[in-house]
């Protein structure tokens, strides 16, 4: 385990694009992983991760500009694709690799998926492996969990994450708890994925952020992808994980374009992504808000600030290593999320950082979240619901004055 991290750390030091002293922070923290109590660094992917590619790719493909498709000069040219295609690529590679991997959901097969993530898979793998379910979320989620109990590895697609509320009981009680209540006999290697978040005027019921509802369920992991690179990497890691993983995609990010490597790679489920190293303030974000943060970062840099932007990616558990290192460096934290203020991921993150790193904070943690309202349909109102770049800039300025 340690070898992987050291390789990562070494590669970071080599990379030309990062300006901070990675060795000082990264290796030290990583070496202490095994001693760290309550480490939730769970099951590692198999040996393929040690191919030596992961390290370079994790750092170099990270966007340091808001809209760039980053690829360092050190890696191969790769190929360009959209985020939903990256998800599909990851899914297809895993289905090729392991015959137990299957997909179920509404209109995933013949229709190709309402967001085209499963396009072309049904003709290739057949109707049973890419299963078109009736509209019965509660039951087909339960069915997937039951199948997983015997060793299959289903991927459940919620056409919109919001529909999975109907399956909450299955996800909470069966998916999350069966491994525990059976004393470890059963593992539930399911992946539950789908688009959520506030889109473009989709209405209240189709603009939900379920990560805040699911985060308390013990036994599950939650990750949120935000770039084609991490979408593919997280999809693959989620499928290979022995634990149930909920992969949150965002309706508005499916058409993001990026150049990703040709070689196989996986992202760590529990790892956060350093988007932009900086010195003045740590901005923690995930999913679509990452882009609002990077847009604000442009303005902030022009104003002379040096924000460190971290895409936390892992919503459960939090990557408190990366986060902690950052807090120790900058002493100021701003969380920017799309969840509602009450009981969101930001609320939990604020608590976690306060508990673990409050000695390092020079200012109270500020959390920018969506308003505690059902998402209205009218476009102008919808805009006010979520955090906009201008608000992020203001918050950073206020925080840095303290």
């Amino acid at each position, binding site marked *: 385990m340690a070898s992987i991290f050291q390789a990562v750390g070494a590669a970071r030091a080599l990379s030309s694009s990062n300006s901070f002293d990675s060795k000082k922070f990264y290796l030290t923290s990583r070496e202490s992983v095994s001693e760290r109590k309550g480490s939730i660094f769970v099951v590692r992917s198999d040996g393929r991760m040690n191919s030596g590619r992961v390290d370079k790719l994790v750092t170099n493909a990270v966007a340091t500009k808001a809209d760039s498709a980053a690829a360092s000069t050190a890696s191969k040219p790769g190929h360009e694709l959209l985020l939903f295609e990256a998800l599909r690529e990851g899914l297809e590679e895993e289905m090729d690799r392991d015959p137990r991997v299957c997909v179920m959901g509404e209109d995933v097969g*013949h229709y190709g998926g309402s967001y085209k993530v499963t396009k072309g898979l049904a003709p290739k793998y057949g109707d049973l492996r890419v299963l078109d379910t*009736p*509209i019965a979320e509660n039951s087909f989620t339960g069915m997937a969990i039951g199948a997983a109990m015997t060793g299959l590895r289903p991927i459940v697609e919620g056409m919109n994450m919001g*529909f999975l509320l109907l399956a909450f009981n299955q996800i909470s009680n069966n998916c999350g708890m069966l491994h525990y209540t059976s004393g470890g006999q059963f593992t539930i290697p399911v992946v539950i994925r789908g688009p959520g978040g506030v889109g473009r005027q*989709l*209405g209240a019921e189709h603009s939900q952020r379920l990560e805040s509802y699911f985060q308390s369920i013990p036994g599950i992991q939650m990750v949120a992808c935000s770039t084609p690179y991490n979408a593919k990497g997280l999809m693959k890691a989620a499928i290979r994980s022995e634990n149930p993983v909920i992969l949150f995609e965002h309706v508005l990010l499916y058409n993001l374009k990026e150049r990703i490597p040709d070689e196989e790679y996986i992202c760590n489920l529990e790892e956060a992504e350093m988007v932009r190293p900086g010195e003045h303030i740590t901005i923690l974000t995930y999913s679509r808000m990452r882009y609002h943060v990077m847009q604000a970062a442009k303005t902030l840099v022009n104003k002379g600030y040096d924000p460190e932007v971290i895409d936390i990616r892992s919503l459960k558990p939090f990557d408190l290593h990366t986060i902690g290192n950052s807090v120790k460096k900058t002493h100021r934290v701003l969380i920017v999320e799309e969840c509602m203020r009450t009981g969101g991921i930001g609320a939990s993150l604020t608590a976690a950082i306060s508990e673990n790193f409050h000695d390092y904070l020079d200012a109270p943690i500020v959390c920018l979240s969506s308003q505690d309202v059902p998402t209205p349909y009218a476009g*102008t109102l919808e805009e006010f619901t979520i955090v906009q770049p201008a608000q992020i800039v203001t918050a950073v300025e206020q925080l840095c004055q303290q």
Partner: protein
Amino acid sequence: MSLIHRSSSLLKPLAAGPASLLRRPFSSATDDDATKITVETSVPFTGHRIDPPPRTIDTTPKELMTFFVDMARMRRMEIAADSLYKSKLIRGFCHLYDGQEAVAVGMEAAITRKDCIITAYRDHCIFLGRGGTLLEAFAELMGRKAGCSKGKGGSMHFYKKNGGFYGGHGIVGAQVPLGCGLAFAQKYSKEDHVTFALYGDGAANQGQLFEALNMAALWDLPAILVCENNHYGMGTAEWRAAKSPAYYKRGDYVPGLKVDGMDVFAVKQACKFAKEHVLKNGPIILEMDTYRYHGHSMSDPGSTYRTRDEISGVRQERDPIERIRKLILSHDIATEKELKDIEKEVRKEVDEAISQAKESPMPEPSELFTNVYVKDHGVE
């Protein structure tokens, strides 16, 4: 012979529109109210655990004309919504009802505003039938203040409380237990009214439907479950999602009726029959065999899972408006030109409503926080 003195009563159950539409003399020389026309439904009803109603129905020229105008208005509204969506004045999800108008109009003709209707997201036309105005509809679709939900709901969240229309719901199937709740309240309050809970063939496979149906049957609630079977749950054909696509039989111990949903008279007859039944005997299921010309929503072309021939075939053979047009013409109630003029008027009516809706402003920013709770309680 002229309809002038009748126009006000004619217009009452309809959505607001220019009264001039029907204040015109028609070629029929007889008194429209007293004239009885007997029509036959296109196909007989099929019953499950029940004797179906007769397929011969009495109507009047007035009713025929009303049906024509109402359906033409609904059709025009949906087509206009399509254009508005393409010009990005309507955003998000927009599920159109064109092809299914007979269900909305036939049902409305059999009931009163004290009866309740609840449906899913394909709700624009039902809203209109329940007394909603074109202005309220278009304004809501464009997210404006004048919308029926003040612009905060959108296409899938049309409601009209004083018209007995309970929405407008985005999550498939969730409206059916709500519908049974409406019926429960009606029984509780000893009203002699009923609830129509509409759902699609896709939603027919939701467990909550059967849970709700069981309870409705257990307690003899006046609930009529109406499956608007347009044969596709988004991209999935009914036979690929349901082991038994005979939705009118799926109630098992609950009786059911299969109805040609493209025939407004069949719908009216079935709804009238159902209302009488449930007031005495508890729930019933109506399966409306209908069809949507558009795809599932504006983001779905609707042609990847069905052929264009099928769509045009249905349009030619079974279009609800054409059926009424033929009836009107064959009974000499109006001429072709008169019907075309009516359609032109309807188009104008719709266009006027759209321009009015466009003038309506966006909601105030403060509206973001209103109606979360009642009277601002619960705010920190």
